[in-house]
C-alpha cells in the first residue's frame, strides 16, 4: 500500500515535470520508429522538435525504454551521390523554429536492440536537453517513409 502511494506520487511528479517542459519550450510531435527487420542491428527514430522559446534548444542525448547497446544522435548527409552518416553531439532547434528528424536527415539511432520492436509497438524515448531537462516521448513503430524525395521539406 505504502509502495503504491510512493509510486503514485512518483508518477504524479513525473507527469508534473513533463508538463512543465511541454508548457515551456520544446514540443515534440509525431515521434516514430522505423519498422526494421527482426535482425536489424540499428533502428532509426524520428520526430519533429518545435522550439517555442526565444533561445536555441539542443537535444544532447537520448535513451530508450527498449533495451539497446546505446543511443546516438546522427545526421545523414549526401555529398556527390555518397551518403555519409555522421554522429552528432547534439541536435539544435533554433528559436521559434523546428528541426525535423526524418529519414535521410537528422535522426536518433538505437544501436544494438536486444529485440527489434514490431509494427505498432510503442517505445519510450527520453530526450536530454542542453538545459538539463528531460522529455519523454512515446514513439510508435511504423513503416518507413520516403526520404528526401521531391516531397520532402527542409527544416
Amino acid at each position, binding site marked *: 500500500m505504502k509502495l503504491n502511494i510512493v509510486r503514485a506520487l512518483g508518477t504524479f511528479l513525473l507527469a508534473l515535470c513533463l508538463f512543465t517542459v511541454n508548457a515551456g519550450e520544446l514540443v515534440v510531435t509525431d515521434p516514430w520508429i522505423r519498422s526494421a527487420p527482426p535482425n536489424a542491428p540499428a533502428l532509426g527514430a524520428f520526430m519533429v522538435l518545435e522550439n517555442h522559446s526565444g533561445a536555441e534548444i539542443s537535444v544532447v542525448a537520448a535513451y530508450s525504454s527498449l533495451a539497446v547497446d546505446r543511443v546516438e544522435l546522427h545526421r545523414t548527409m549526401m555529398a556527390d*551521390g*555518397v551518403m555519409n552518416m555522421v554522429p552528432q553531439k547534439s541536435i539544435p532547434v533554433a528559436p521559434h523554429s523546428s528541426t525535423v528528424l526524418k529519414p535521410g536527415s537528422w535522426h536518433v539511432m538505437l*544501436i544494438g536492440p536486444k529485440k527489434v520492436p514490431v509494427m505498432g509497438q510503442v517505445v519510450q524515448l527520453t530526450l536530454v536537453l542542453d538545459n538539463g531537462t528531460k522529455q519523454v516521448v512515446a514513439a510508435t513503430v511504423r513503416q518507413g*517513409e520516403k526520404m528526401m524525395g521531391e516531397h520532402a521539406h527542409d527544416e
Partner: protein
Amino acid sequence: MNKFTLLLGVMLFALGGCQQADEIPETEAAFVLPEVVTLADFKLTHPRLGEYGIENTRGKWSLFFFGYTHCPDVCPTELFMMAEMMRAIEKNPSVVVQPPQVVFVSLDPQRDTPESLQQYAAFYHASFIGITGPQSTVDQLSKEMGVFYERVYHRNGDVVTLDSEEDVPEELKDSYLINHSASIFLLNPAGDLHAIFAPPHDPNRMIRDLAVIQGAWR
C-alpha cells in the same frame, strides 16, 4: 544528374562496351549508359541459391543496390522504396514489361553473413535477394559498377577511414560505419550494366523509367 554520375558515365564510356540501341530512351531520372558495360563474372553467396554470379542475372532485369545491415538510415530507406516499387508493380503488372529482381549486395561481409543479409533483405520484400562474399569480390563488383564506399569510424569528433584491405579492430566491430553511393544499378537480361538511378529515388518514377528502358531494349 550530379557530378558523380556524370563522371561515372564518362568513365564507363571511355572503357567501352557493347553498343546500346541507336536511340537512347528518354528517362526522367535514370542515366542510361551510352554503351552497356559487360561485367566480369563474380561469385557471391546467397543462402538458398548458393553461388550467385552474372549467370543468375541473365533472362531478367536486375536492380543492384550496395549497402550493409548496420546501415542506420540510407539502406532501410532505399530498400523500403524498392519494396514500395515492387508492391506497385504487383498491383498493376502492366506498368512494366517485366518485374525486376532486386539484389542487395553487402559491402560489409565482415559483419553480414549471407543468412543475416537475406533475412534482412526479405523483410522489406519477400522477393529481394541478399548476396555477399569475400571482400575482394565485393570490391571488384562495386568498383566495376562505379560504387564508391569507405569504412569510417568517429572518434572525438574526428573521422577515421579504415584501409580497404584492413581488418576491422575488434573494439570497432559494432561501431564503424560505411559511407557509400546510394545509386541503384540496372542490369539488363544479358547481365550487362545498362542504366544507373542516382538518388533521390521515387518508386513511381523508377517504374516509369524502367518501363521506358525495358520497352526500348532490343
